[in-house]
């Protein structure tokens, strides 16, 4: 059953994380994971843990920053926020994504329709 869910490609995970942070403002890891699951309506096979190395990589790239703060359960949590470089990257990746998905979509049209 779970096997029917598409794997999340690394590139698209980056896009989803940046988009989430851009939309919602600073979030801790669990918040980002929940948001991605909600938006995708649990349609993705995403192990939540894979988010953390990805966040670390984004931070190293300079696209997000992190700060420790208090979480809603009154524990210390790490909050991630998007940077200006991250927004630029988001814009670039979003455009790229649209272009590619547009191309793929044209391929997938029923034959003879165009």
């Amino acid at each position, binding site marked *: 059953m779970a096997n029917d869910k598409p794997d999340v490609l690394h590139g698209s995970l980056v896009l989803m994380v940046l988009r989430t942070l851009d939309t919602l403002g600073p979030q801790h890891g*669990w918040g980002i994971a929940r948001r991605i699951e909600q938006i995708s309506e649990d349609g993705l096979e995403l192990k939540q843990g894979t988010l953390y190395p990805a966040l670390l990589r984004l931070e190293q790239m300079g696209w997000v920053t992190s700060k420790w703060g208090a979480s809603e359960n009154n524990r210390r949590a790490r909050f991630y926020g998007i940077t200006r470089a991250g927004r630029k990257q988001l814009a670039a990746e979003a455009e790229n994504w649209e272009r590619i998905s547009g191309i793929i979509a044209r391929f997938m049209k029923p034959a003879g329709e165009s």
Partner: protein
Amino acid sequence: MMTQLRVFLRRLSGLLRKGDLERNMEEELDHHLRMETAENVHKGMTAEEARSAALRRFGGVAQIKETYRETHGLPVFQVLWQDVRFGLRMLRRNPGFSSLAILCLTLGIGANAAVFSWIEGILLRPFPLVAHQDRMMAVTGTNRGAPGHTDVSWPDFVDFQRNCTLFDAFIVDRITGTTLNIGDRAERSPASVVSANYFEVLGVHPILGRGFEPAEDFGRNAHPVTVISYQMWQERFKGNPGIIGKTQMLNGMSHTIVGVGPEGFYGTFVGWAMQFWVPTSMQERFDPGGYKLEDRGARWIEGFVRLKPGVTPEQAQAEISAGGKTVGNRLSGDQSRSWHQIVPVVANPFQQRGGAASHARHRAGSGCFDTPHRVCECEQSAVGQGFRTAA
């Protein structure tokens, strides 16, 4: 590019903050699991169910942590460091084997280094401090009809210097010496008669005073000047900084000390540590057998050449052969039967290197100068190793 650099720097600094990494990672992942568990409980699961559902959803915690660590630092360095530590542990565990292996390596490397430095000293760069030794070659004369080699005469040499264009320089060097008093005993000091351009061409700069000046090549015994070695300066003159301009009796003639050679320069005879040098004009004083500077038949000096960059020994030989003909035009009598050859410094038959040199000579395949007969063959086969000074 900038991004890659930033990533590298952050990872590098990540290496140094490993303690922070572990603590923060634990805390962050723990927070995540607690949040997820709490939500599962909220949905109506028991605490136990909620926790295991959270773990399932999270994926392999250990695996995630490992990926996280790898991303955090520079895995190549870290793995390398692990390997080094593992290696050291294994060495400690088998001390017998380890010391045997280390001993073998030590001896092996040591023997290699010894052989290489011997080869380097004898064959590759025989003269300490001399610049561009890779382009240096020796010039020898050979006599038709007689085995072996001769030296070169000063007039021949001057002609080569004047007529040849493929060479940076020609220098000459004649082994000689004198007897000096050291306290109450006498000591033989080896020395060289050299052309005035000697120090300049070798790139050896006197640390005090100067080398020789062009005019000091000429005039019969006209320039009693000498450049002394660093060793002589230290031992005989106690490193006296005011030594320049002082005089020293050499072979019965008072010589003015005009320069002190640099430490570690011993001249251009392998196996000899020259103590002083005098210019060519002093030949008669230091070389037995009378005055030879105007006698083309008097072959008393060893010549060295330095090829211009990119010039092959064959080209150089060809030019010496051609130049030799103009030299030969002024020759007469049995001197017309003489030849000149340039040979690798290592194969120089006059340098005191016996076996090593002759092996190298055969290895190099330049057997052209073993007999005059073979010199002829070489010229005919256009190898260009042998040639005549006579037309």
